[in-house]
């Protein structure tokens, strides 16, 4: 009972003074419904089982804790890639810094514009996929995002997009508290690549809803973090149709607190869904949490989860992954691996790799390991004249390779690999 009271108090404290942005009737209704969901579920507390390993307090307090800006002289990611740039500064769309919102095979508009339009395709998705993802686990922070999101984009993919869309999140204000909500509809047979980069804000709540229709292909590569004191909770909700493909990769550097929730629902036969992630953290103030929930509700589908973490100086890594195979979802191939490399004795890895299976003709496996760098391998490299730092860096990159291989575009993978290498060099002492 005490827990229920604590949750109610946390929720009301956060919602005090919150007013929902008003627009078209459908969007007002979507926001009001989401707010009701927040109240009904209550915001998470440390005592929620789903938040056993991550303290959500700084994500739920009314005022965002400040986060200093950080500059490491590295240029913007993916600068060499021909892409459509959409820039948000502390969670607010910046039209001057952004490219023209148009591209072959793409219909892009600002969330606010879509929500002000009485008849808009986003009506069938905004908050809809989020609400579907609330069962069987409560994700009240996602509902809060739907209710209060102030900006974002909606993208309809009607054919093969000629170039990737890059959402660039800049952080300029030490006290910013950004809430962004993006909606993507990949129509039958269409294809796009979405890139997301940047630390975004002192506190960042971001939600992505993706509907991949039959035969559609959606690629997602993001690099989060950089700023050491940043806090973020991100949610991805996807509905994946017949013979379609969904692939998402996330790289996380730094950040006091990052919680990435990815909720996939495979509803069409013969579909493929891959989620992968790499995180590298240095210091006791690094806490990173990957929480994945994949539901198989169709025949002959494949899902893959590959998560690797490198942790040092007291950093904490969390993985909560679940594969749910519903009754009748035969011929499912589910694979899940979560591994951490602890570079010293103070770091920790907390994992909960779950399977829930109600169909008998499936192959599902999961593995989870944790440990230090292989002494034998290190010895071998050193005996060949490789200095210890370089050898450690080499072995660490080798450890991360399996996750990076999940990125289909080799150019993008190479760029992230370079960033990882320089991060490891900066953090090797």
């Amino acid at each position, binding site marked *: 009972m005490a827990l229920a009271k604590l949750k109610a108090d946390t929720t009301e404290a956060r919602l005090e003074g919150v007013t929902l942005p008003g627009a078209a009737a459908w969007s007002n209704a979507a926001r009001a419904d989401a707010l009701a969901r927040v109240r009904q579920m209550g915001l998470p507390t440390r005592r929620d089982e789903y938040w056993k390993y991550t303290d959500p307090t700084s994500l739920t307090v009314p005022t965002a804790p400040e986060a200093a800006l950080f500059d490491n002289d590295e240029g913007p990611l993916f600068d060499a890639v021909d892409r459509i740039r959409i820039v948000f500064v502390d969670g607010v769309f910046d039209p001057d810094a952004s490219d023209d919102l148009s591209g072959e095979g793409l219909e892009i508009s600002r969330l606010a514009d879509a929500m002000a339009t009485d008849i808009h395709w986003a009506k069938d998705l905004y908050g809809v996929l989020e609400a579907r993802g609330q069962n069987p686990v409560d994700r009240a922070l996602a509902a809060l995002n739907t209710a209060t999101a102030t900006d974002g984009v909606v993208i309809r993919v009607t054919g093969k997009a000629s170039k990737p869309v890059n959402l660039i999140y800049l952080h300029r204000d030490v006290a910013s508290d950004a809430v962004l909500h993006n909606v993507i509809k990949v129509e039958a047979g269409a294809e796009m690549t979405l890139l997301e980069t940047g630390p975004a804000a002192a506190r960042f709540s971001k939600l992505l809803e993706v509907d991949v229709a039959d035969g559609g292909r959606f690629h997602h590569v993001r690099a989060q973090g950089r700023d050491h004191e940043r806090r973020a909770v991100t949610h991805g909700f996807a509905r994946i149709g017949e013979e379609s493909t969904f692939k998402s990769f996330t790289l996380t550097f730094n950040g006091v607190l990052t919680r990435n929730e990815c909720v996939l629902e495979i509803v069409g036969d013969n579909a493929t869904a891959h989620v992968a992630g790499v995180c590298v953290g240095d210091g006791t103030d690094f806490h990173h949490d990957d929480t994945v929930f994949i539901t198989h509700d169709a025949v002959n589908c494949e899902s893959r989860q590959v998560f690797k973490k490198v942790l040092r100086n007291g950093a904490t890594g969390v993985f909560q992954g679940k594969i749910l195979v519903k009754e009748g979802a035969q011929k499912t191939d589910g694979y899940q691996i979560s591994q951490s490399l602890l570079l010293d004795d103070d770091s*920790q890895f907390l*994992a909960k790799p*779950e399977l829930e299976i*109600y169909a008998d003709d499936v192959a599902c496996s999961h*593995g989870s390991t*944790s440990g*230090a760098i292989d002494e034998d391998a290190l010895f071998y490299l050193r005996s060949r004249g490789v200095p210890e730092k370089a050898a450690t860096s080499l072995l660490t990159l080798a450890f991360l390779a399996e996750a990076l291989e999940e990125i289909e575009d080799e150019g993008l993978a190479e760029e992230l690999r370079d960033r990882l290498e320089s991060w490891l060099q900066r953090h090797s002492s």
Partner: protein
Amino acid sequence: MAAFDEIEVKDGVDQETVDAVSALSGTYKHGWNTEIEMDYAPKGVNTDIVRLISSKNEEPEWMTDWRLSAFERWGQMEEPTWAMVDYPKIDFQDIYYYARPKSMEVKPKSLDEVDPKLLATYAKLGIPLKEQAILAGVEGAEDAPAEGRKVAVDAVFDSVSVGTTFQAELKKAGVIFCSISEAIRDHPELVKKYLGTVVPASDNFYATLNSAVFSDGSFVYVPPGVRCPMELSTYFRINAENTGQFERTLIIADKGSYVSYLEGCTAPQRDVAQLHAAVVEIIVEEDAEVKYSTVQNWYPGDENGVGGIYNFVTKRADCRGDRSKVMWTQVETGSAVTWKYPSCILRGDDSQGEFYSIAIANNMQQADTGTKMVHLGKNTKSRIVSKGISAGKAQNTYRGLVSMHPKAKESRNYTQCDSLLIGDKCGAHTVPYIEVKNNSSRVEHEATTSKVDDDQLFYCRSRGMDEEEAVALVVNGFCKEVLQALPMEFAMEAQALVAISLEGSVG
């Protein structure tokens, strides 16, 4: 029940396995009941009942107080709901908390004085309460050498211990083996020192209820340096209707000692579900070793889920001393609902914990079982091997925790849990928690059957076997290895289980 004739089994699942599971979980063989006059305490639980149980056991005041404080605590606790099991709410006031055969009113001085009806009950279960060397029902036992075939039995019938065999012989070795009620009377210093130190009275909802109302159970103390001369065993039988069984087992292995303990359980076939909430505490001191084996065969309910035992059990071993070792082996075939996590606290440096489990759930059975390995000491090792098999409409969950504390340097854990589904209406679930807080420890969790030791495979292949044959041999060999961890007394059950292969299983 027919041998799953109507169920289509997917390719790759061994027919022998299906038949073995069907034979094991088909007709319940121990569903008969003994007509015997019983004494009951009034239904329900309150402080008067707690006092009554305490006075029936002629307990000293400190024990009564301990129970009462547990009862008070229980009143403030909520039933756990996190397990993946679903059952109608239990009315804790509609259960008899104490049921004793009338003939046990005056405690028999020796086994000769025990009501023949009770002796006959155990004889029928294949557990003769006679000090004879050979256990009925164990094939080949006649040919085994006389040494090492003796098993001392403590038989618990509903709420009371009926008798304990071989007490005199054990006493010669210095081993104390008796019912816990006797131990509270005769060895209060030991009970007071150890009771509730592994599973505290406030541990969890069912353990706390047990602390308040436990009626009997077994007590074992093995003194320093003693290797217990025979296997010890407790056989639990629930007979009375609407009765809950709350037994408490306390095992203490003092420095350098060794004991192997077996536990068996059955109950009659009734259409009202019955509650069994036991607590087992094991204390393992320096260099001591305890093997604890269970064949749990409570009545599972019928194919529609009517009746059966709710088995809500807390079992925990505390490896307090350096180089201490504990091994849990369990074969779970019965019970309508199982909620059971035999755990190891690896406190001493170089201590070891092992957990081997085969859980079979059929029809409407639900099992949520697993283990916790808490590594506190340096260089501690644990190994978890869990095989879950679901058939019919059953749900089988492995739930476990492996925790490496910051000070548990150089520790190791290896976990493997495999599940097999027979038919498309059942479920198999895995919920492992892994917490690693230092980097010199290694934790490996794996749930694939395809991952067979490469060296073993290579060896087999170098002898001319093809890949498939080699894999089958290694996998089956592995399964048998687990079963061989069971003492010979469980040979019957174990033999049937050897036919089970988990090829074609999921992680």
